């Protein structure tokens, strides 16, 4: 395997990682502030992708599609927070899991009902098509590079929002002591709706961005949701920093595992069984990573015990 291919795979891993970060950041914020496990986060990702595909098809503008993805996901997010999620904060995790699982059923079938079972396609705009030459002569997809840029920009923005602004201060206070900031006169229910809508918008954006590489279809959010869970278990629940570290770790491990393992096994096996064993093991690799983290640090890399 040559160096160029390896660097390309590392970039692919980064791209996958920042997408996971957009999902995991919302999940971990919602868990950190409201103590809620939200399975319907994957549905918000799907809603973002569908909204983007619909708006892009109607207007032809990719930028407008991205804005629509965030707006639609945030709106649906705020709506379910006000109607359903709000009633779940005081309930135990089992009830949260089941109620948000019920939301997945409703959203998935609802989307299938409106858009049909066939996947939609969201095209990469002309100005992001093609490749760029990176320093060192590496040719890489401009669109994927843009995704990495957007993801990192969101990460920086989120850090600034949480550490520098008034809303961020309230979010941090909410993580520490919910009742106290309520007693200090902060309207906690507005804060909750806001945090939920913010997490939803990030999920929607990531759905739209990925939707342009893969297809936009019902159920697209579920595998990503589970990976995002792996990410926050590795990073530590409630920690944005952990979500970023975990997401990059999972993105790189998965992408590199899929390309490297068959090669590694190929050094001492015949080619076809190396591919079989390598790819089967690669599909389990991130879970093995998660198990490893759990053995040494059950609360995740950045989690507090």
């Amino acid at each position, binding site marked *: 395997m040559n160096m160029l291919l390896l660097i390309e795979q590392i970039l692919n891993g980064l791209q996958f990682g920042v997408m996971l970060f957009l999902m995991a950041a919302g999940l971990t914020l919602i868990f950190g502030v409201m103590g809620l496990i939200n399975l319907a986060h994957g549905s918000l990702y799907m809603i973002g992708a569908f909204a983007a595909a619909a708006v892009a098809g109607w207007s032809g503008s990719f930028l407008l599609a991205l804005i629509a993805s965030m707006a639609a996901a945030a709106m649906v997010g705020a709506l379910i927070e006000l109607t359903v999620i709000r009633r779940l904060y005081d309930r135990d995790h089992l009830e949260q899991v089941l109620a948000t699982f019920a939301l997945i059923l409703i959203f998935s079938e609802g989307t299938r009902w409106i858009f049909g079972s066939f996947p939609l396609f969201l095209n990469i705009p002309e100005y992001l098509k093609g490749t760029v030459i990176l320093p060192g002569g590496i040719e890489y997809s401009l669109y994927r590079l843009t995704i990495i840029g957007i993801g990192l920009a969101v990460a920086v923005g989120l850090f600034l929002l949480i550490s520098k602004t008034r809303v961020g201060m309230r979010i941090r206070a909410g993580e520490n002591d919910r009742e106290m900031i309520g007693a200090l006169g902060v309207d906690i229910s507005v804060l909750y709706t806001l945090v939920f809508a913010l997490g939803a918008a990030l999920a929607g954006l990531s759905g739209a961005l990925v939707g342009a590489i893969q297809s936009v279809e019902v159920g697209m959010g579920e595998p990503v949701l589970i990976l995002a869970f792996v990410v926050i278990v590795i990073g530590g629940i409630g920690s944005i920093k952990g979500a970023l570290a975990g997401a990059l770790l999972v993105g790189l491990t998965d992408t590199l595992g899929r390309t490297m393992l068959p090669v590694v096994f190929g050094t001492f096996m015949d080619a076809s069984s190396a591919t079989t064993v390598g790819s089967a093991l690669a*599909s389990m690799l991130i879970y093995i990573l998660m198990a490893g983290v759990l053995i040494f640090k059950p609360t995740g890399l950045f989690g507090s015990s």
Partner: protein
Amino acid sequence: MLRERTVNMIVLLLLLVVPAYALITDEPFTITLATRAVILALAGVGLNLALGQGGLVSFGHAAFFGMGGYAMGILASHAQNYTPILESPFLIEGTNSMPVIWLVAIIASALLALLIGALSLRTSGVYFIMVTLAFGQMFYYFTISWPAYGGEDGLSIYVRNQFPGLNTLDPIQFYGICFVLLCAVLFLVDRLNKSPFGLALNGAHQNEERARTVGINVYRLRLVAFVISGAITGLAGALFADLNRFVSPTMFSWHISGEIMIFIILGGVGRLFGPVVGAALYILLEHFLGGLSEYWFIYLGAILLGVVLFAKGGIIGKLAKREVGHGK
């Protein structure tokens, strides 16, 4: 309000009367539906031991369900093709005898539960939910990418496995096998719940610190419960595979974990017959709503949401009063 025991007896009676009626009126499809309900109920009874009694919200029981299914699939496919599973260092051949397959399914899923449980139980609360979900999903992807036993397409078994003295291809006889197994497991779980083990498990669920203070090794207690729970769900998986004569990675899908959990919440968490009522109701809903609309999952979602938000205690909770010293 009825007593819970009365409700349970009515449920058992219905599980006898409905298939008997279907047999008389010659509706084998109804018997197949009832068989499905009984098998899924068994999977739910398994999860309920960990979830209802132990408070361990496992979102990865599909792993055990699938493991049971593949135990059946692998053994039966080797028997079907007359190829041994292993030739060296010693010979292992496939089999199409149900009792052997059950035993293998139980042992395999118990071992898997031991592994997953030992890791997952190091965490608690929401971590536990996510970790079990992730481990379940791991096997889903593994079976998809492992081509030896059908990969993504799954494995078809052409003839249902044999049970000594019975014709398993006759729907009512296969139903009988499943029903007897369900009753046996219910009896066992009931005894277990009332044993010192079950009381300690329930105690640790209600107050972990207190249980620890009186000298209970909570981790080991929960691990044992998790293993038994996984083994029961694995047995259900083997039966489910035999019902369909087909296994595929979908048995490992997290939707299965979610569905098994739905049975419990529909019927009533921690109630002995909760999963039985829940699974039966689920099959009825699937049958009737599925007939009404292609998009029946919307209605299922709405019903589930309603039950979670407004009907704590599920169906049995609505029908029966709490018995003293039962549940949390």
